[in-house]
């Protein structure tokens, strides 16, 4: 038996890398043909391969927020579109948070892969489409109080049947969004991506034969499961509690508790969110798929990154999320911010909980928000409506061995910021400044990463803006004696004024971090400050040479170098 087992490991290596290269190819098609900058500059999408039952077999590295929820999306969809009704050439689209989805902007496309007349697999692309209708241009209706405010819900439907576009679905969808030309391009890209992947995967499956291929994929999931169990076994058994807070939900000024207790026993982990706040009126509720993704994301950060990513990894991880809470929301509450804002808070809480068990890999909290600044208006030059979803980057938490990275996308994304020169070519803003913020990283033996500042002036159009962010109040926590990162801020200065105000002061909004449909006029300015990351270990233990270097480079000011690290004045 030894021989057959060994041969499998070799073929498994080969099939896994073939699947990943098919996923990458899907991703490249998406990147090159899509229209939204959140897609093609920020790369906010995921490409994966799933079994006909919805188990994930392989995924390419693009955006990690989405992988944990994928099995739920597919299994939910198959309840409404039974497998036997799916034909070659069909493509299914879905975005409904209340049918296993993550949030309305995230559209999941999947394409069946048939070999020898059997449906063996699906190629899956999940992408963030910037405009989905609803209360605000750009998808993030931060004052929404029900799902219907958040844009068009797309239950699982076929957008292509046997290779032909289903015109009715296209018409219905495009009639409900503000930027149909862009949405058309993004949807075409998603379809093209899953079709390219399906073609490539079919070749691989044919080569090995359906049964052999399925067997190898089953073995591959077992292998990842075994690797994950071995990692968990290395962590000491015990109960590990932690909690963090969201500032508010955008509707009511009340903090929201994310409570977690992780139980490690031998080679399994239970992640229990009992004690988290009941679901809230505003749009930061997380669907179960988001909470799964966040818990998995945290644990993947604390274990060997080389474990192949598939559903097998998640078998030893059990997530308990009570229904009706902020981590498992019930219909019809709003939830668009759950996927971007609540996810990092959940993932951070799990990392915080497990830090005593995994001190080498755990890290202090990162800024934990994507800033989600969305806006729309009339493009005079091209005589059409534009909508943009802009993300900003944050300071990351320090690890035991290194300072936190400056200006890096939060843990549930891996998005890129849009270049100023591309941004200003497309949108009527003038950027005055894009900078790192000194002293924004939490003090520590290793220091938290720095947040950023961006200042815009509105040029020659009225722009309708909304934002859904967090950590204006509750800062990124440090670990083992490390200090917190500084808070984020969003400020506004009216044309002709010289006073910066927050959105509560300027527009009477309920929250400084979550506000909708503010009309910015020519000459008005907006400043977005992103949170810094937490520090690790006592600042007293920081190497004085590193403090000197930070001071010389302007990462800390002389004042903080003295206050936090005791560096004497003029000690250059």
């Amino acid at each position, binding site marked *: 038996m030894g021989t057959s087992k060994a041969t499998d490991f070799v073929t498994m290596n080969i099939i896994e890398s073939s699947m990943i290269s098919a996923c990458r190819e899907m991703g490249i098609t998406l990147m090159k043909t899509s229209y939204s900058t959140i897609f093609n500059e920020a790369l906010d999408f995921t490409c994966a391969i799933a079994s006909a039952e919805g188990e994930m077999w392989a995924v390419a590295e693009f955006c990690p927020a989405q992988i944990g929820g994928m099995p739920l999306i597919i299994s939910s969809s198959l309840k409404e579109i039974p497998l036997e009704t799916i034909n070659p050439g069909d493509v299914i689209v879905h975005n409904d948070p209340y049918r296993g989805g993550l949030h309305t902007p995230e559209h999941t496309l999947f394409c069946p892969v048939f070999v020898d007349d059997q449906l063996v697999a699906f190629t899956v692309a999940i992408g963030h489409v910037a405009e989905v209708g609803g209360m605000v241009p750009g998808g993030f209706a931060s004052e929404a109080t029900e799902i219907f405010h958040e844009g068009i819900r797309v239950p699982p439907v076929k957008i292509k049947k046997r290779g032909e576009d289903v015109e009715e679905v296209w018409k219905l969808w495009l009639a409900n969004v503000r930027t149909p030309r862009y949405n058309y391009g993004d949807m075409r890209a998603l379809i093209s991506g899953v079709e390219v992947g399906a073609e490539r995967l079919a070749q691989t499956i044919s080569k090995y034969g359906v049964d052999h291929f399925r067997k190898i994929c089953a073995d591959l999931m077992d*292998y990842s499961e075994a690797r994950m169990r071995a990692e968990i076994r290395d962590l000491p058994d015990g109960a590990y509690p932690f909690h963090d807070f969201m500032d508010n939900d955008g509707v009511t000024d009340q903090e929201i508790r994310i409570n977690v207790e992780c139980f490690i026993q031998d080679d399994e982990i239970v992640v229990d969110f009992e004690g988290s706040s009941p679901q809230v009126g505003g749009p930061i509720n997380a669907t179960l798929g988001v909470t799964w993704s966040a818990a998995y994301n945290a644990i993947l950060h604390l274990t060997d*990154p080389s474990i192949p990513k598939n559903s097998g990894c998640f078998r030893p991880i059990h997530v308990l999320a009570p229904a009706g809470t902020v981590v498992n929301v019930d219909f019809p509450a709003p939830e668009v911010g759950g996927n971007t804002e609540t996810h990092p808070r959940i993932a951070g809480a799990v990392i915080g909980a497990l830090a005593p068990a995994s001190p080498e890999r755990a890290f202090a909290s990162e800024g934990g928000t994507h800033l989600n600044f969305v806006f729309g208006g009339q493009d005079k030059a091209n005589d059409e409506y534009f909508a943009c979803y802009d993300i900003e*980057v944050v300071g990351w938490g320090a690890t035991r*061995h290194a300072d936190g*990275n*400056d200006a890096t996308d939060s843990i549930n994304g891996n998005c890129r910021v849009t*270049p100023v020169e591309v941004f200003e070519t497309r949108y009527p803003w003038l950027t005055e400044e*894009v900078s790192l913020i000194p002293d924004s990283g939490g003090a520590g033996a290793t220091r938290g990463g720095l947040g950023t500042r961006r200042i815009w002036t509105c040029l020659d159009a009225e722009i309708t803006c909304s934002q859904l962010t967090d950590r204006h109040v509750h800062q990124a926590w440090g670990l083992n004696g490390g200090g917190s990162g500084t808070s984020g801020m969003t400020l506004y200065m009216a044309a002709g004024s010289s006073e910066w105000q927050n959105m509560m002061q300027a527009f009477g909004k309920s929250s400084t971090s979550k506000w909708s449909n503010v009309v910015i006029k020519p000459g008005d300015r907006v400043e977005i400050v992103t949170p810094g990351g937490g520090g690790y270990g006592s600042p007293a233990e920081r190497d004085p040479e590193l403090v000197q270097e930070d001071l010389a*480079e302007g990462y800390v000011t002389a004042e903080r170098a003295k206050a936090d690290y005791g560096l004497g004045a003029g000690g250059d």
Partner: protein
Amino acid sequence: MSRLTVGIDVGGTFTDFVAYDPEGKEVTVWKNLSTPANPTDGVLQGLKQLTDSIRNLRLGTTVATNAILERRGARVGYVTTKGFRDVPFIQRGNRKHHYDASWVKPKPLMKRRDCFELDERMLASGAVHKAVDPAEVEAMAEEIAARGGIEAIAVNLLFSYVTPDHEIAVRDILAKALPDVPISISYEVLPKWKEYERASTTIADAFVKPIVSRYLTDLGTRLKERGGVENVAIIKSNGGEMTTDAAAASPIHMTVSGPTGGVVAARHIAAQLDVGNLVTFDMGGTSTDCSTVVDGQESFTTNFEIEFGVPIQVPMIDIRTIGAGGGSIAWIDKGGMLRVGPQSAGANPGPACYGFGGTQPTVTDANVILGRISPENFLGGTMALDMAKARAAMQAIAEPLGLGVEETALAVLRIVTNNMTGALRSVLTERGQDPRDFALLAFGGAGPLHVADLMGEASIPTGVVPNHPGQFSAFGFIMTDARVDLERTVQMTSSRFDLDRANEVMGQLVSDALGNLKAQGYEQGLSVSRTLELRYLGQNYELEVPVEFETFDAETVQRAWATFHDLHKARFGFNIPREVIEVITFKVTAISVRETPHLPTLPKASGAPEPTAHRQVHYDDGALQAAVYDRASLGDGAVIEGPALVEEPASVTVLRPDQTLTVDSHGNLIIRNR
């Protein structure tokens, strides 16, 4: 009378030499050990064996690349628009890997304290929002001088690709005030949008300028002392040559110098074979390079990162490197899976069979165990290999796998083949190419060993092993032309296309490119080609559309749009005929053709080729007796049926049992599946 053309490729371990004598139509190849402390020592040493004088000496060098990778360049002062000094530090905000909390974001090639901001601003439209104040620039120059230690300056102002006036004004003032400090301005280095990528490229240019300049001056002096060398040129990342003066002025064009020779040679081989499409497979000890020749032309990119977070986006041949080669180590991971690489045994200790102390099994050890490399005839018999050590190393991983030593070695090769297939696929399918339309050109020390297996796995019907596979880049240098690629972002759309502006921009690029060649003294065989980078309005990546007319007018521009719709359909499977097209980049290539070598041909083979030996070679289907041939003995038209091996000093070509090899009139080995 000077007559030779000599190509020299300075690598990490060896410096390769190829000399072409146009009178005798002879090609001579040799190599000697590189001298990393001063690479010019190795070059001069190797030239000692030439008695004829040299007309053209062309050098591929890693001096700029190594300076960047080892962070050994100049202290750079960075000058930018007020509010934007942190752009090189913020970068794009993405991480290299998900889930790896130990990843540390790279810092740029200069210190934050050496960044200087100017209160000036251009707009996307090209309008001046805030003019440059010369007094402010003069004060900045004083500050830089007073600070001391700044060895080079990079200037990158927002929207300089739209209107370079501010950058040029700043450069002129700084140059006057700081005459000894070299200055790189982004408009000259890379007049394209995206401020971070342009900053990184411009900073890298300034960073390597002093070190490259010193290196080239020293090289020039020592070649002059030696005497007998008429022209010295440096190979650019675009596969063309440039004078040493041009190289010193824009060293950023040298970052991928050496490997381009293999691709240029591939273009000539494609012509020799009369095939349009080749994919190159250059496998060495620690890394493998892949690239393509499509319709007889090399493929180019401006999307290169020398390492994660350090983009260098000047136009260059699109060569993809993966960190896997003959020295890659096979190992068993924590879950029991067999893996190959990315760790490499390198040259020291090297594979276990080298006997230099390596104990971990490598790809080369697998090839020795399987009978593909002869322990007695490695590197032309100059280095004996230790089979027992190779087997002992492989045995250590065979046991946990429950496999025999040979089976394990075969498994290692299967995984290598699959990894290489991924690399080939990435260069082909990312451009929408079908592997079945290509021939696979294998070179480097290890390429010919793996070509036969790769053909099957990658669905490539024909394999080719050219002459001089071990010195193939240097071989390419005897065929290079002088080449300048210029491009500029000038955004417009098909619905409102400004014919005058388009003609002005393209005309300027053409005259700049030709002017650049002529200023270097390249006057003969000049030709120009033009392309546009287009996309649908809203997309973010462009397709390159050839412009086969000299002037944009109402009629010709329609042809460009039609071509784009066709290309989009061919590449991505769909197009949007009613959609507005956005123009992003205007591009021009100017070439001055150098002499084309007349490569020697082989005498006709007389009868069937004679094997020098037979030995047992392990294939997936079992062990077979393979005939072994000496490549030097093969004539034009010789036919060899697999299983077989063709040995030459630099490499071994392996033939599978189901393959036939023929030798063409130039000596290329052509492999086909039966």
